[in-house]
């Protein structure tokens, strides 16, 4: 009888175990494994980075921050996560049940989908699409739908305001973001993430950010627009606690709330990664070319993968720290100021900047004397800016040092590596 069923199936579906093409099964398993790896990575990033952010915020505000759960509080995120798990999952009676339940997953899915093209190392990338950057700009549109859905389905005025603000903000800031990333595409001649990295080198003077002054400006424009798209302070109007309680996720609790937070902090990684790939040379390891890495075999190959991963994570972490510090430095903009910033400053600015990049790319031949002169000048500009920053920070510290010693009888010096 079993044989009869098998024969029937064989006739009906044309299934023959001997000649069956198993490649799609392999593909599904590989895709599943890659998604799982990306998910585990984002979970292990988004969790601890909340603790990191709170520690930085603490020090900026003359506090310490969480340091009780685990050594120096590094397990604080686990405690917070378990707390959210145990909370009741409330759905307001007047909410649109289906949309309300679905929205967090759409938001999280939108962020997760970017990991398809975001590289982690020399060969550590799920899919190196030819249109990687375009895909990245397009797929984040899912997040807008998710946030708008959450705002609408909550059936609360605060949530609706937050959702609509978020939609307006994301749609507006896509434009300067795209303009400034377009200048990178023009410089690299490709939209593939690995291709853009391959066009840069490992040393700072080979990075796109120091290629010319316009790309240097594009780096900051792109970072600003990404921060705005990620709904982070100073552009976190959709959540605006002082006006909207919590914005689009005001009605959410428990696990669904956690998904929003998960996406928000996971997005920190996405912001940092896009900037690293496009401007900071990605995972390039000094002293070795991508072709050499690809040609190596066995242990050496995996060694290079690990090294490139470490380089990439280090660069991205610096940017994450920068974005976190930006959050605790600048106050939130008003809604009209937000729109003015985008439409009157960032959009024309990015457009002019793109024109500047175009002119320089057309006029200055690549790798020529003029090109290297411009690179050197831009690198000098960057170093000068960093020096001014350090000098200003030091001046601010020195202005209070002696007064503090006189008043408190203690030294003011307390660097971040001294853990209280």
């Amino acid at each position, binding site marked *: 009888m079993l044989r009869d069923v098998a024969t029937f199936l064989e006739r009906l579906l044309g299934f023959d175990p001997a000649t069956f093409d198993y490649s799609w099964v392999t593909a599904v398993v590989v895709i599943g494994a890659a998604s799982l790896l990306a998910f585990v990575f984002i979970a292990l990033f988004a969790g601890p980075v909340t603790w990191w952010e709170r520690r*930085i915020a*603490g*020090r*900026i*505000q*003359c*506090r*310490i921050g969480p340091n009780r759960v685990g050594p120096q509080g590094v397990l604080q995120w686990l405690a917070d996560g378990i707390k959210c798990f145990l909370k009741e999952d409330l759905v307001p009676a007047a909410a649109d049940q289906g949309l309300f339940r679905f929205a967090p997953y759409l938001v999280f899915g939108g962020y997760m989908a970017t990991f398809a093209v975001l590289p982690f190392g020399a060969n550590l990338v799920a899919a190196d699409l030819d249109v990687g950057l375009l895909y990245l700009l397009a797929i984040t549109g899912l997040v807008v739908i998710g946030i708008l859905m959450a705002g609408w389905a909550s059936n609360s005025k605060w949530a609706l305001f937050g959702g609509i603000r978020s939609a307006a903000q994301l749609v507006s800031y896509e434009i300067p973001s795209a303009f400034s990333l377009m200048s990178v595409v023009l410089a690299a001649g490709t939209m593939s993430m690995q291709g853009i990295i391959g066009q840069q080198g490992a040393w700072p003077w080979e990075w796109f950010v120091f290629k010319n002054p316009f790309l240097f400006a594009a780096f900051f424009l792109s970072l600003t627009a990404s921060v705005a798209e990620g709904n982070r302070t100073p552009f976190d109007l959709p959540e605006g606690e002082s006006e909207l309680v919590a914005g689009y996720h005001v009605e959410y609790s428990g696990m669904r709330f956690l998904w929003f937070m998960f996406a928000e902090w996971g997005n920190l990684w996405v912001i940092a990664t896009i900037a690293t790939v496009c401007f900071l040379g990605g995972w390039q390891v000094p002293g070795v070319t991508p072709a050499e890495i690809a040609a190596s075999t066995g242990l050496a190959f995996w060694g290079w993968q690990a090294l490139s991963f470490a380089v990439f994570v280090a660069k991205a972490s610096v940017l994450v720290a920068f974005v976190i*510090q*930006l959050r*605790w*430095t*600048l106050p939130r903009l008003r809604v009209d100021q937000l729109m003015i910033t985008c439409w*009157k*400053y960032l959009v024309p*600015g990015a457009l002019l900047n793109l024109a500047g990049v175009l002119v320089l790319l057309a006029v200055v031949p690549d790798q020529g004397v003029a090109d290297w002169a411009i690179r050197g000048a831009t690198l000098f500009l960057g170093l000068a*800016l960093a020096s*001014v*920053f350090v000098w*200003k*920070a*030091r*001046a*601010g*510290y020195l202005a*209070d040092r002696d007064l*503090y010693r006189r008043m408190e009888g*203690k*030294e*003011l*010096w*307390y*660097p*971040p590596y001294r853990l*209280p």
Partner: protein
Amino acid sequence: MVSAVPPPVGDPMPGRGTGGLKGWIANWARTATTVLDGLAVTMSWMFRRPLTIQYPDKIPQPVQQMLPETYRGILELDVRLCTGCLQCQKTCPIGCIDIVVEKNEAGGRDITRFDIDVSRCMYCGLCSEVCTFAALRHSSEFEATQPDIRNLNLHFVTKPVPVARHKPGEAPPRAPRGSILKDVIPGYGRRPGKAPDGGEKNR
């Protein structure tokens, strides 16, 4: 500060409201410089000593010793100095002080009860103000969590004590601040939450 437009005198935000291309460029320049300034300020705070006092465990000395002399903590009574004048009981707006003074066989007077219900006390300090002999005053103690609120009705007198009759200048020195409460607060010095005797049930 790099600014394309010279700042007008007295304007806290130079270049504000300036229209046209000049104002546009000035705003860009100001954005760049002020964000850099702000980041430099927050970065400098990353290297400064935090103010946080990590109560209760990671501190160099108990918080009770760090508090100022004028801190109004839980009331404490030095019975050796108390004359039983009842001024504190009369002045207490809440009536949380309960004193009983009785005559003894020798013809003198004994304080047989001196209870302060700390759970009702509002720490106004009037009682310590009227206490002429400085018998009653605020300590710097504030940790008195109890499993039963009735434990906070502190009994400063457990067996009859004769009232103080000291000549001027002969009074014994006052007990150190906070030293009396050790014997009065149930489970003093233990971690809050559990009382060894299960708490007092009846008054």
